[in-house]
């Protein structure tokens, strides 16, 4: 399996210090650890939202310094833990993401379909200002998934979700990876459901790798 990312001697302030790490492509990769262990910083580095102080970072074998930063973010899309929902309707939010990527937006039917898949039976033309935290998180996920990026970086995608919605989201993500062979890097505090689906788990502690291990998927 080709590596999606490879990190060599990467440091970022005192937050992160990774001598060597390979994140496999076409698979699930879960980053876990306590608060402040550097999980979100790692995602931001992979998304090129920040640059490492030292070391090298490769994406599909190419040093990310030589990849156009905007082009990289179109291939490697990130969803933050508390995603920002842009003013306007649900549909406008999705359309905006497509405008950012210079892609043709999906039809309203396709948007409705995705909303239903994620238990959001809401009119796409409805304003987003009345959405709950969990609904916003799912909308942000749909917004990113619809872009069909090569790699998706998710920061605590189920943090604001109840058990039922957590299960729906994780099942969809598992299918998404196995169906399309795309890469998924997900930050998570843990939780049985997340652990059960992970292909590789990386445990960070104080910005350093404590351990990395593979888990056989047992189903969600």
């Amino acid at each position, binding site marked *: 399996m080709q590596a999606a990312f490879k990190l060599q001697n990467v440091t970022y302030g005192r937050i992160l210090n990774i001598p060597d790490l390979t994140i496999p492509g076409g698979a699930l990769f879960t980053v876990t650890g306590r608060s402040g262990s550097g999980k979100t910083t790692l995602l931001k580095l992979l998304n090129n939202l920040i640059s490492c102080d030292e070391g090298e970072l490769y994406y599909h074998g190419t040093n990310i310094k030589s990849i156009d930063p905007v082009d990289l973010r179109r291939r490697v899309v990130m969803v933050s833990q508390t995603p920002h929902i842009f003013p306007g309707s649900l549909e406008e939010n999705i359309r905006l993401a497509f405008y*950012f990527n210079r892609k043709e937006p999906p039809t309203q039917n396709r948007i409705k379909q995705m909303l239903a898949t994620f238990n959001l039976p809401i009119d796409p033309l409805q304003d987003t200002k009345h959405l709950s935290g969990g609904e916003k998180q799912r909308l942000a996920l749909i917004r990113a998934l619809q872009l069909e990026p090569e790699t998706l970086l998710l920061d605590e995608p189920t943090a604001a979700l109840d058990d039922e919605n957590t299960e729906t989201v994780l099942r969809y993500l598992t299918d998404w990876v196995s169906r399309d062979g795309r890469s998924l890097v997900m930050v998570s505090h843990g939780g049985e459901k997340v652990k059960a689906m992970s292909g590789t788990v990386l445990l960070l502690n104080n910005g350093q790798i404590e351990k990395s291990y593979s888990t056989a998927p047992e189903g969600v």
Partner: protein
Amino acid sequence: MPEQLSIEIWRLAASYLFLVLLLLMSYLLRLGRGKDFIVATVRMTIQLVLAGYLLDLVFGQSNPLVTLLILLFMQGFATYTIIVRLRGKISESLKRVVVIAIFCGTSAPLAYFTQMVFPADPWYEPRYFIPIAGMTVGNSMIGISLGVERLIQAFKESRDRIEEALMLGATPQMAVSDFLGDAFSAAIIPTINSMLGMGLVFIPGMMTGQILAGSSAIEAIKYQIVIMMGIAGSVSIAVYLLIQLGYRTFFNNRAQLID
């Protein structure tokens, strides 16, 4: 044309009665700002007297270099005023953008204006060039000041939103385009409002001055229209330059937001 009415010194002194009135009101309302009003009046008087003598001196000569030096001084002072007001809030690179916006944003419209719209002979005739330059530089200074403040505020308060757009693959320009529009509107609105109320709500200072000095109202209106168009053009070019170059200073060459 009626003869220009000369204001004698004692009449000039009589106008200061309004300062006494202002001080009385300040006392009655317990504002405690009497000193501010006196300082403002004294400064206004000294500045205008000095400017009057200086302009008389300048108007007496006809040297393009002197005229351009005065323009340069106005532009420099306008830049200094903006930067001092934003001390501590504005980055070094944004300061450089303010300099470019003021100098290019006012020089280019002035060049067009003096060649095409208001062809004084010679173009650098200080009696025409300097008041026009003063009005365009002054108004552009206000526009840039409002625009740069709005830009800084947007990047401070909407960091999450900008970062979210970047995460989704937006170019820096896409990520901030709404804020650029807001900053442009905020900067240009005073000029537009002033155009809307002109002639109905108020008679502009330059026109009033001309009428009081004995010009016909029709002639004064023609002057006022071309000056207002010059001001609108200059403010919009200066502010456009500011926002288009300014937003880039908040990003590095990896399209990342700078802390």
